[in-house]
């Protein structure tokens, strides 16, 4: 449980963080809530030479109503996402999903930006923001750019973020009263999902994303287009794994995962249709 030796700098602003990461390059890692990175370091599976602590960059923790969307600062803790009145009103699926991340201690430390930037397909918030059609705002040495969630996830723990870029904001479109459901299937409440489903539904329209059903969070576009074409929920749910390519692990084989995905998508769409 003792990590390999590393150096440490604390950034007080996003600009300083980016300048530091540009300086130290690929040997450096951002440290936000630390809930993904520190366990890997303690097991010595990750051995960054430099940690750039962005945990105290104050101006990145906020949840704001920005008209068509809600803007969430990357350093906003899961607990704040979970309990935000603004999100309860405009993006209840996201605040509900945030309440399922880990346990209460994790939710007080972990951040939405850290979770998304880590790009773990088994995490709840990457898939949830994907289902909601979120846009991520990243900042690099040359300024800011926006990346659609659909373009962000590139592979297992790989994203479109460049080494010298930092995720600073998550923009979630308002749900406009859409029905929604978050289905997390696991063996213990605090675990990662074996399979998770984030779904919303309005008349003739649906968005469904899957947790832990491939090397990235998966947007179940076949399900959504089947619903748009008027298919029944169970017929649409049978297509849950069309875009997925799930792994086998101790908790679930590939075929069991696919089966679970269909069951959970069906349940999610049923709940979202109520």
């Amino acid at each position: 449980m003792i990590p390999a030796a590393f150096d440490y700098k604390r950034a007080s602003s996003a600009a300083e963080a980016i300048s530091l990461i540009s300086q130290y390059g690929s040997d450096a890692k951002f440290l936000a809530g630390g809930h993904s990175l520190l366990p890997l370091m303690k097991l010595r599976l990750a051995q960054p030479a430099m940690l750039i602590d962005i945990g105290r960059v104050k101006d990145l923790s906020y949840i704001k109503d920005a008209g068509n969307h809600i803007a969430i600062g990357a350093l906003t803790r899961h607990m704040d996402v979970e309990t935000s009145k603004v999100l309860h009103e405009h993006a209840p699926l996201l605040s509900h999903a945030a309440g399922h991340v880990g346990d209460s201690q994790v939710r007080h430390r972990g951040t939405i930006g850290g979770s998304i930037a880590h790009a773990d397909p088994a995490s709840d918030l990457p898939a949830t923001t994907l289902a909601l059609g979120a846009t991520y705002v990243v900042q690099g040495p040359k300024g800011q750019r926006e990346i659609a969630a659909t373009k962000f996830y590139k592979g297992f723990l790989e994203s479109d973020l460049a080494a010298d870029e930092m995720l600073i904001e998550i923009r979630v479109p308002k749900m406009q009263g859409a029905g929604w459901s978050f289905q997390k299937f696991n063996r213990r409440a605090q675990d990662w999902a074996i399979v998770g489903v984030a779904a919303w539904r309005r008349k003739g329209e649906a968005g469904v994303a899957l947790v832990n059903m491939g090397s990235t969070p998966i947007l179940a576009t076949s399900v959504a287009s089947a619903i748009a074409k008027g298919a029944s929920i169970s017929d649409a749910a049978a297509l849950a794994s069309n875009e997925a390519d799930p792994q086998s692990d101790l908790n679930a084989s590939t075929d069991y995962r696919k089966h679970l995905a269909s069951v959970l998508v069906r349940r999610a769409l049923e709940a979202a249709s109520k």
Partner: protein
Amino acid sequence: MTITENKPTKIIGTRLLRREDPPLLTGEAKFTNDLNIPGALHLSVLRSPFAHAKIKSIDVSAALKIIGVVAIYTGKDLQSAWAAPMPCAWPVTTDMKNPPHYPLASDKVNYVGDGVAAILATNETASRDALDAIDVEYEPLKAVVDLEDALSDKNIIHKDLGTNKSYTWPLLVEETPGCVEEAFKKARYKVKERYVQQRLIPMAMEPRAIAAVPQPFGGDITLYSSTQIPHILKVMSALTLGIPEQQVRVVAPSVGGGFGSKLDVYAEELLCMALARKHNTPVRWVEERSENSHATIQGRGQIQHIELAADEKGKITAVRVRIIGDMGAYLQLVTPGVPLLGAFLYAGVYDIPKAYDFSCTSVFTNLTPTDAYRGAGRPEATYAIEMAIEALAREMKIDSFELRKRNYIKKEQFPYTAFSGLTYDSGDHLLAAEKAVKMTDLAGVRAQQKKQNVPGATKLLGVGMSSYFEMCGLAPSRVLASLNYSAGGWEAATVRVLPTNKVQVITGTSPHGQGHETSWAMIASEKLGVAPEDVDVLHSDTAISALGLDTYGSRSLPVGGVAIALACDKVIEKAKLIAAHQLECAAEDLQFAGGTFSVKGSPDRALPLAAIAFGAFTAHNLPDGCEPNLEAQVSYDPPNFSWPFGTHMCVVEVDTETGAVKILKYIAVDDCGNQINPLIVEGQVHGGVVQGIAQALFEEAVYDSDGNLKTATLMEYLVPAASDLPSITTGHTVTPSPTNQLGVKGIGEAGTIGAAPTVITAIIDALSSLGVTSMAMPASPQTVWRTIQEATRGGKK
């Protein structure tokens, strides 16, 4: 300071809050790794990444260059440090095979986690860094992982033994020769079942921690260890290291759980002691979590074959059992004895004739050694007989509770001499079972089940049951001798009334979560008529509590607690002589109640214990020949095992689409005789039930075919948390033990013994309409879902 007054105390049976809790909850309690030991060197152990491999070479040169690294030792370097191999105290048969086992492997490693080199450094970071810098060349060998594969002897792990079989231990009890075979021939009903007891990792929340300090208070060495067994560890470590026993002191500070995993003599304890002596400097070590998964013993690991023969009424006429036990790579302290602890219990709570054929063959594998884990042998046995009873009920197409009722040993049969010759001193199985049935509202659940489990339903209700008998206390010593166990089963206690009438109780038990300080104080309080807060309980330091056999096997109360009551009696006996002398009456004219001696018939002629204690201290006015001070010591060897029993039931809902199992209701009716503190009894039952549910639904040490542990961290090894568990409803019947004055029986393991079969039988009950008749443990959602798929594919739905 004032002199404590004596007053009548009725404290036994009350829900006194645990005095242990405030320091534990506020972080005041000191665990081994909290001890501040200036100048201590830190030990790290380099462990084998291979389950089976030859060690070709070890290059430590780069590691030695790390700043802070003091020394590195390989197995060969330390060979001369050991006077004997690591101990196995239970040679179950005279021809048992026991490969030599040293704290570090020298030529060959036999499981992932086997120690290869010991690093000493001035700080933890340097010793950890050095692990990555040692270069070991291995020649991997074929790993033996599967029990049946081990039994075949295709690949032999310990070549010198010529076989992977450690021993075969038979127990054949026949009224007439051949009667078992005869019973099976004549049986109207027969069942033949196979069960797998998966390997479990005990996962005490405090991993092991050790500090060995040379000569802090004279003698040779003091060993601080997170152990359940300071007394046994003292003698065993002295023998292994060749140190005179009187010069070794062992202290167990606060210990954060054991469940049997700290009932052992471990390589790291011996390494810390040997290296502390070699360097004449304190040496300490603390285990990492994944190290705990690999290098601390594991539990269970058996394949069980059980056959029952029954007559037309379902009365069991014979039991046949064949076990393969997984010893792992080496024999630890009581590894080979674990299956024997269950050997007498495969007839469970049932009245069977002398027609019992048990045999266990235990084998070596290239896996972490197994040893006693909560229940040790008895949960396995109970699981097998209770699952087989369910199978028999299915075969007969009758209700399994009805079948149990036909076979229970009846209340009026106690004391009951079992087929084995053991005497079950007391019991009332039907009473406990009927109470559980009532608390479960079995009729109501069955009615609801009828409504809910209709064709096409995806949420199916099931109800499960298991009745158990536990053989615990793990004494008398003579019976342990007949099982070839190397130690006895007695326990020691000293009770000392100080001049101010405060009381010291010194016990040989070694609590690590059980609340002994509270319970033992309650016993002395009630006996002596002092308030419980005026009683201190000293334990877990061999310099203070010189005699003892420690804590395991639900023995502490029925052996150690009774020893305290007996020591109190001896104190009272002595005090009575002093009281008679001072009151100028005959001792037999005195009565003792509420802490005061009074002359029968003239209650105003009285002396409180406080006055006698002070008088015994001043020794100004003692009867002739009476020694000063008020203190007594007892070593108590009980006349029989302790026989708690009970029935557990639960109601589950199985989601047939996902395989998820939800326990809706869990009822535990346990009979541990009289209860000293019902609050502590409930806590023990809750913890035990949770560990049983964990085996049924969550936990398994999963290995791949090369012997790599895939569940080494708490992310993969699924210890359930409160949020994953049902509320547990406890109920009790009280059948006092007739063999001890407190009427108490053990309760530490009961919950674990009852829970696993209760949960699994409930799942099978829920899925019976789909044709499911068996369920592997752990019944994970995937396992349940697959079992449903296989059953329904069979065309029964």
